């Protein structure tokens, strides 16, 4: 890294140069390791050192099992630009946000940021269930970096935006999850940062809430502030972002005008599942997706049933886990968004592997011919996204000559719905006298 930095161009809000972040597996720092493991590792390293001394060769330390969550990522974001960050699960999107919000430190490269960074990935961060709404506004505000005087000034606005006036002196443990979420969001939204980072995956909640998030985001963008928007929703990225950045396995593959990047991203193998390494775990809660398999099985009259078998791996019993499902065209247009609030697909997970099957009978009688992708996610108590798997499965619907015209209904030409529209002539014709 350079010892001195050239002044940051005043039009640039974020500058990242060669950012890299690695995670070691079985190395010096690991998750929840115990002293015994470390001491064992120390002994092993000593033994290895002794052996290599015996060999008379000074060998470089063994290459540890290193995963680069980000590597060589360089880009700049102009002031006032709204940049979409896309890529499949594990591509490094969240790591990038974590580095830019200084939650974690990079191992390579550097980034420079102009102004205060706020993020909507920490909705309700710092909230304590025993404290009242009023107390939590101050606590959460302080955690997010607001001054007390600033919170005082914005207090009424925060309460009003959240719509919790009547419950402001009630402990938040009595709040409905919706109220809790709204209050948390309201605090975060009133931080008024120069740069706003939004991670849609983490900010689940009901559709109305998501709309609110997106609305706030476009407000912020409209005020000429800089926004980084991580999302799986290509429609939203297309609508909101001037440009997009595509990450894949920690590397920046493409950055440029939104439409171009999205097209390239979606064209990149709806079929390719090599990037998905099951199980995809949420280590905090000890739950994840162990496997996802899609089959189209023949049904009556030449139709096919969609069967999606799903294995959820739980390290402990977890009650009320919701299963979310979204169907998109391969161009990213939403066909169906079925969250657990709508479907009530909520299950208590037992320790071990929990198997589920999602079934949609005669799906090729519902959808137009073309390629589709399916996103799946698990949520808990309507608040936390536990795991989200983007493009969990690809679905190819063969053409159906619904109207006997010799032509197929095509998703891109005619829309995604196979609408069994009929026309009937009413006889006899009425002749005008």
């Amino acid at each position, binding site marked *: 890294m350079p010892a001195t*930095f050239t002044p940051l161009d005043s039009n640039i809000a974020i500058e990242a140069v060669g950012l890299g972040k690695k995670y070691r597996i079985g190395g010096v720092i690991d998750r929840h390791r115990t002293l015994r493991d470390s001491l064992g590792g120390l002994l092993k390293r000593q033994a290895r050192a002794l052996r290599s001394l015996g060999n008379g060769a000074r060998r470089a330390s063994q290459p540890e099992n290193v995963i680069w969550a980000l590597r060589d990522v360089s880009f700049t974001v102009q002031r006032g630009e709204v940049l979409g960050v896309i890529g499949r699960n594990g591509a490094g999107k969240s790591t990038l946000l974590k*580095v830019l919000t200084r939650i974690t*430190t990079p191992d390579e490269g550097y980034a420079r940021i102009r102004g205060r960074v706020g993020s909507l990935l920490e909705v309700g961060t710092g909230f304590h269930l025993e404290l009242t709404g009023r107390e939590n506004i101050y606590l959460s505000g302080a955690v997010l970096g607001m001054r007390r005087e600033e919170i005082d000034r914005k207090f009424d606005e925060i309460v009003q935006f959240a719509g919790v006036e009547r419950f402001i002196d009630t402990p938040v443990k009595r709040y409905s999850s919706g109220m809790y979420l709204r209050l948390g969001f309201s605090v975060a939204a009133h931080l008024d940062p120069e740069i706003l980072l939004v991670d849609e995956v983490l900010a689940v909640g009901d559709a109305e809430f998501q709309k609110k998030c997106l609305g706030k985001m476009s407000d912020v963008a409209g005020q000429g502030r800089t926004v980084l928007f991580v999302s799986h929703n290509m429609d939203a990225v297309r609508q909101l972002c001037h440009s997009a950045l595509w990450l894949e396995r920690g590397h920046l593959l493409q950055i440029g005008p939104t439409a171009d990047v999205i097209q390239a991203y979606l064209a990149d193998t709806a079929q390719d599942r090599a990037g998905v390494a099951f199980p995809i775990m949420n280590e905090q809660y000890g739950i994840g997706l162990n496997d996802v398999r899609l089959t189209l099985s023949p049904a009556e009259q030449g139709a096919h049933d969609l069967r999606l078998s799903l294995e959820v791996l739980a390290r402990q019993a977890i009650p009320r886990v919701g299963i979310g499902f979204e169907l998109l065209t391969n161009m990213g247009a939403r066909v169906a968004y079925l969250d657990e609030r709508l479907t009530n697909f909520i299950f208590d997970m037992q320790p071990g592997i929990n198997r589920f099957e999602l079934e949609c009978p005669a799906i090729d009688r519902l959808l137009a011919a073309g390629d589709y992708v399916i996103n799946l996610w698990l949520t808990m108590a309507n608040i936390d996204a536990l795991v989200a798997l983007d493009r969990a499965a690809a679905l190819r619907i063969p053409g159906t000559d619904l109207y006997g015209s010799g032509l197929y209904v095509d998703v891109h030409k005619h829309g995604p719905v196979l609408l069994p529209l009929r026309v009937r002539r009413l006889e006899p014709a009425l002749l005008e006298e």
Partner: protein
Amino acid sequence: MSGYGVTRGLKAAPSEQITLIQPMRGWLALNLREIWDYRELLFFLVWRDIKVRYKQTLLGASWAILQPVFTMVVFSVFFGRLAKIPSDGIPYPIFSYTGLLPWTFFAAGLANGANSLVRDSILVKRVYFPRLIPPVSAVVGGLPDFFLAFLVLVAMMIYYGLFPTLASVVWLPACLLLALMTAMGVGLWLAALNALYRDIRYIVPFLTQFWMYATPVVYPSSLLEEPWRTLYGLNPMVSVVEGFRWSLLRQSQPRLSMFALSLVTALILLVTGAFFFRRMEPHYADAL
């Protein structure tokens, strides 16, 4: 020296400070200035801990008093009455309570400090702030409990007709500061280790118990001969308890050499703890 920090000197509007993000390696500066910038967060975390502690329990703030008082009663019965441990001619209840008062503050500070990063792991994983703030707030948050328990001591002294020395105006705050420094130093070491190795939480109760018996809480230090009695000051809590007894109960004389030794130990613990904590800082968000 690399680390997070605001690159000053680049001309920018105050709200447009440029933050430089780069790898953190090796020994890092403490960045006390940044902690000062975040003093309001420190205040709110202390306030939260106190509020939650008293809100969640049935008896609320009275626990701060009940805990040392019950311990004092138990000690008086078993150590004072049954085991007949000497107390330098002072009634055993007030003898043990003057020791228990700073000891309870120290032990709670140590345990809360050790647990602080794990307790606030959600914050550490989601928001940036100086990581020193959780352990510092956890240790400082024990002060209100101390002052409440102190009221009991005042009542007991009136009951036993004991009057403190004038010097106690200086000595008590000095001893309390010494206890705070020691708890903070050890708390920082343990907080960092606890984030990385979960074994630490099993060690803390043993450590506290062992440490209490290495401190003259239930027995007088006059049981030891010189020079061991001065060397005993390597444990800063010895000077804290002795200082409390001396200035409140006029028992024995202040031993400046012992106090100096304790102060040095406490300073070493605090400084090494703070630097070790900073050194491990890049790993917390990933290890928690």
